[in-house]
């Protein structure tokens, strides 16, 4: 694997005790129940802890409504955590209102590629906006960067002049990935990026994600309910149920020899899964 030409810290394992990219400790997100009495809350995320190394892909799996997406949103500061701590490169993150540098470090790719692109903006404007807002480039330089992003994500430069509706679902997801990449983040939270796409397009998007990881040394928090997809892409897997992580470990260990009852149920519900090398 060729690592990034950009200056990135070496991946985990090279130092004696490397600082993980992300350290999540006892994260809780509770939502007040509407119309309920005071103190009645939904415990969407209820005490989640994990580490994420540089260049690593952590799969977060679980059934619908178990709080996977809320974890991702809390990491990005899109929802305020009720309790817990998130550290990025050893630095504790504020719950919301983050500094621009921290915004640049983490980006997100959403499940629905149609709804995640502003239908009133051309693709070029969509990709240019993050770089404009963070004053990375302007003018002709910006155009070059936008075209670079498009080509890197498997599109063509002429795509910049079109509106999102002119693209297929897979192409739109490529645009969304390109937008996340525009700020050169360390971490991309992928919130079920393939579940709205059909199977052949899914594998193209997964391959794109792993190519980009090789090129830029990205870390992914890969949220999914699809064990096959997780098996394809992730280094480690965390299994969530009812707001808690019930099992976390290397992919092969979790998928081949699950220890928790819930993980077994989840794997049993996935008919076509054949673990690698199995």
């Amino acid at each position, binding site marked *: 694997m060729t690592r990034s030409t950009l200056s990135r810290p070496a991946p985990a394992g090279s130092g004696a005790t490397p600082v993980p990219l992300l350290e999540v400790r006892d994260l809780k997100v509770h939502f007040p129940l509407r119309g309920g009495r005071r103190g009645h809350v939904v415990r969407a995320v209820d005490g989640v802890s994990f580490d994420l190394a540089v260049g690593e892909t952590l799969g977060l799996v679980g059934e619908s409504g178990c709080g996977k997406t809320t974890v991702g*949103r809390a990491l*990005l*500061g*899109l929802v305020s955590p009720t309790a817990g701590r998130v550290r990025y490169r050893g630095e504790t993150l504020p719950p919301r209102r*983050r500094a*621009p540098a921290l*915004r*640049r470090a*983490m*980006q*997100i790719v*959403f*499940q*629905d590629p149609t*709804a*995640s*692109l*502003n*239908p*009133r*903006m051309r693709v070029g404007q969509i990709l240019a*906006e*993050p770089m404009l*807002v*963070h004053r990375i480039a302007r003018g002709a330089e910006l155009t070059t960067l936008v075209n670079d992003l498009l*080509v*890197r*994500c*498997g*599109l*063509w430069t*002429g*795509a910049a002049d079109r*509106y999102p*509706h*002119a693209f297929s679902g897979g*192409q739109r997801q490529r645009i*969304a990935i390109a*937008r996340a990449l525009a*700020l050169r983040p360390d971490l991309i939270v992928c919130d079920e990026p393939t579940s709205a796409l059909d199977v052949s397009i899914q594998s193209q998007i997964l*391959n*794109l994600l792993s*190519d980009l990881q090789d090129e830029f040394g990205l870390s992914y928090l890969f949220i999914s309910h699809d064990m096959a997809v997780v098996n394809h892409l992730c280094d480690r897997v965390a299994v969530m149920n009812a707001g808690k992580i019930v099992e976390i470990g290397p992919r092969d260990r979790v998928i081949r020899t699950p220890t928790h009852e819930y993980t077994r149920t989840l794997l049993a519900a996935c008919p076509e899964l054949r673990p690698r090398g199995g």
Partner: protein
Amino acid sequence: MPPMPQTPPTLTTRPRGVRSSRISGRIGAAVVALMLLVCLGSLPFTLARVGGAAPGEEATMPRRFEASDLDAALRPPFWADGVSDDGGRHVLGTDRLGRDLFVRALAGGGISLSIGIAAALVAVVIGTLYGSIAGFCGGRVDEAMMRIVDILYGLPNILLVVLLAVAVDGLTARFGADLAPGVRQIINVVTLLVAIGGVTWLTMARVIRGQVLSLKQLPFMEACRAIGVPVRRQFTRHLLPNLMGPIVVYATLTVPAAILSESFLSFLGIGVKEPLASWGSLAADGLNELNVVHSRWWLLLFPCVLLGVTLLALNFVGEGLRAWADPKRRA
């Protein structure tokens, strides 16, 4: 490994129904443009003073749309009545005071259209700002702002317009006794449009707030927050452009509604004051002239036809604009 570049699609298709809405939209726009041009463009003619050979005499001369000629009262259009002997001077006939209906319809159209458009503009600006701020801020700000709208909604709005119009009337009568009649008429018209606009923005605010609330939940707005796009830019670049559809549609619906409210008020005698005319007040006058002995049909028919054609054309324009504003219909 570089990803495989994909070939751009070469063929773009347009959905059905675009062409018909485009054609009717263009016809509607042409009719509205013609109405605007004729009615507003002829104002220098209709507002011009009649006669007045001597310069000092000019100020006392009536303007063309209010110039009466009792000898020529209640004449039908010259082409509809063989016995007319006035040499075809009155294209659309005359009213009870012998005022030329054609000239009055032109002046009245100018008044109706400008009140309608200006009132819709007032409603759209207030409604959009109010609704989008409420929706965008959310939480308690939203609650408080929308409760105010609910309260205002609870009041009968035509009553509000009447109260406003009467109050301003009273004020001008009391403090503006020395104002020129022209200035009073301007105050009258402005009051009317502000009052109509001031009560129609409520629906606009609700519509826009609902749109903003649903837009705010969409992933592309979340992506903005994740990127750190400033709130002002989120508002102007992401929110407002996506609101253009409902704004345009609602605005074109508001124009005819405002014209109708204005006619209604004029009919009640609180709207446009004599001798100033609007299509609404002309139609109301025409209705009074309709009786079993004589049907002075021209007095009712022509203002109504002009009003109806204009309202229809405005609706066509609205539909055409909606189709145009929808990005899915652009290649």
